[in-house]
């Protein structure tokens, strides 16, 4: 049996090694992904995003634990992304520190990923990793993004359900009405509800939700605003109910496929773009490209003129 077959049979070391191959985009990894792709499409993919320190990892830990304790619980995978250093390429992946409750459950698989230069809150290979886990029978996949600012919304394209996690004391109500990350929320969670200031945060977010109804899609889903405390387990059941409710909602309103379709389209376009760009660079040649850059630096051409010139 090769690695893919062993992983499909549930061998955990094979799963881990397969994920490495896919993350590193080796030729074996690419081939494995092609073989596994027909088996994908069964997992409910849930994104967890929000500012650093809002408690995403602790929440992922609690959610996974609570989901696993249900009857007929699906296998749960967590993909936790942390940033890579832009200078050395190294990374410190610390999300497991908050996930100690999950050790010993063979129905849970936790994998840390470095962002490896990608800026959207997840790594370039995160989508591929999620596809592998989906194909291997993990029914729920939690994708925890790097601590995000206001515009890292990549996870919205990857996930069926996006949970945006906020916490008290992170900014005034103007932060809450800015465009971007809050607009991708299917579920809004104010974590650390045991801390002072939680009422203010809830009020600001509530106002935002009332002012911008359904920005993501005109589909009638009103993102619930939930309070939780991952340290003492408050609100976890309500979040899980909301996740399942949202999944049902997507299916009954045929939005599940709409989201998949837009994700597939984006993925294809991105790949085409990458390949075309490489192809084009090769065609133009480094020398000519550098000459044109030089002329732009000398103010002989504007960048727009340079592009036109190169494309002619």
């Amino acid at each position, binding site marked *: 049996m090769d690695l893919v077959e062993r992983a499909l049979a549930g061998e955990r070391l094979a799963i881990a090694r397969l*994920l490495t191959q896919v*993350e590193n985009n*080796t030729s074996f990894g690419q081939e494995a992904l092609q073989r596994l792709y027909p088996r994908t499409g069964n997992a409910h993919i849930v994104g967890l995003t929000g500012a650093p320190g809002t408690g995403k990892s602790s929440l992922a830990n609690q959610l996974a634990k609570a989901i696993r304790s249900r009857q007929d619980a699906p296998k749960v995978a967590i993909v936790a992304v942390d940033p890579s*250093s832009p200078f050395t390429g190294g990374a*410190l992946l610390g999300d*497991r520190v908050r996930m*100690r409750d999950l*050790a010993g459950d063979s129905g849970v698989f936790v994998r840390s990923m*470095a962002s490896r230069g990608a800026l959207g809150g997840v790594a370039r290979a995160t989508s591929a990793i999620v596809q592998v886990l989906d194909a291997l029978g993990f029914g729920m996949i939690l994708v925890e993004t790097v601590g995000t600012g206001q515009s890292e919304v990549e996870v919205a394209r990857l996930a069926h359900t996006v949970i945006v996690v906020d916490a008290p004391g992170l900014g005034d109500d103007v932060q809450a009405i800015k465009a971007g990350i809050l607009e991708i929320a299917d579920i809004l969670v104010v974590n650390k509800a045991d801390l002072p200031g939680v009422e203010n945060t809830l009020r600001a977010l509530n106002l935002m939700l009332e002012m911008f109804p359904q920005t993501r899609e005109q589909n009638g889903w009103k993102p619930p605003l939930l309070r939780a405390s991952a340290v003492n387990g408050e609100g976890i059941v309500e979040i899980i109910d909301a996740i399942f409710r949202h999944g049902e909602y997507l299916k009954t309103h045929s939005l599940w496929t709409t989201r998949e379709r837009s994700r597939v389209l984006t993925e294809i376009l991105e790949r085409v773009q990458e390949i075309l760009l490489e192809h084009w660079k090769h065609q133009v040649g480094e020398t000519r490209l550098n000459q044109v850059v030089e002329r732009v630096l000398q103010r002989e051409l504007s960048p727009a003129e340079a592009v036109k010139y190169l494309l002619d």
Partner: protein
Amino acid sequence: MNDRKIRVLIAKPGLDGHDRGAKIIAQALRDAGMEVIYTGLRQTPEMIAEAALQEDVDVVGLSILSGAHMALVPRIIELIRKNGQEEVKVFVGGIIPEEDIPPLKEAGVYAVYGPGTSTEVVVRDIQEAVLGEKV
């Protein structure tokens, strides 16, 4: 395109609560371009072996200051090998008496580092051990 990175698990087994050394090593390895998975305090051997497996690491670094290394380290290595990770290198850092080093190595420890070891030495050893070449 292949983007292989050295992956290292830094773990603190047992009950001592001093993770300064572990964090310094984790940072040094990160700065050397490695992907370091840090698991935090008070990990059982089972938790460490499971993390090493799920993360498919090349190296496991154990930081122990409690004196329990002779009980913990061989157990962790045994579990890692039982999981099928034959090639994973295990390093130990902390306060380890001289006479304990040979039996630890016999149990499969690749290297032992005492207080005051330069992080450069650890980085170089790991690169050598994983990439199989002098760096």
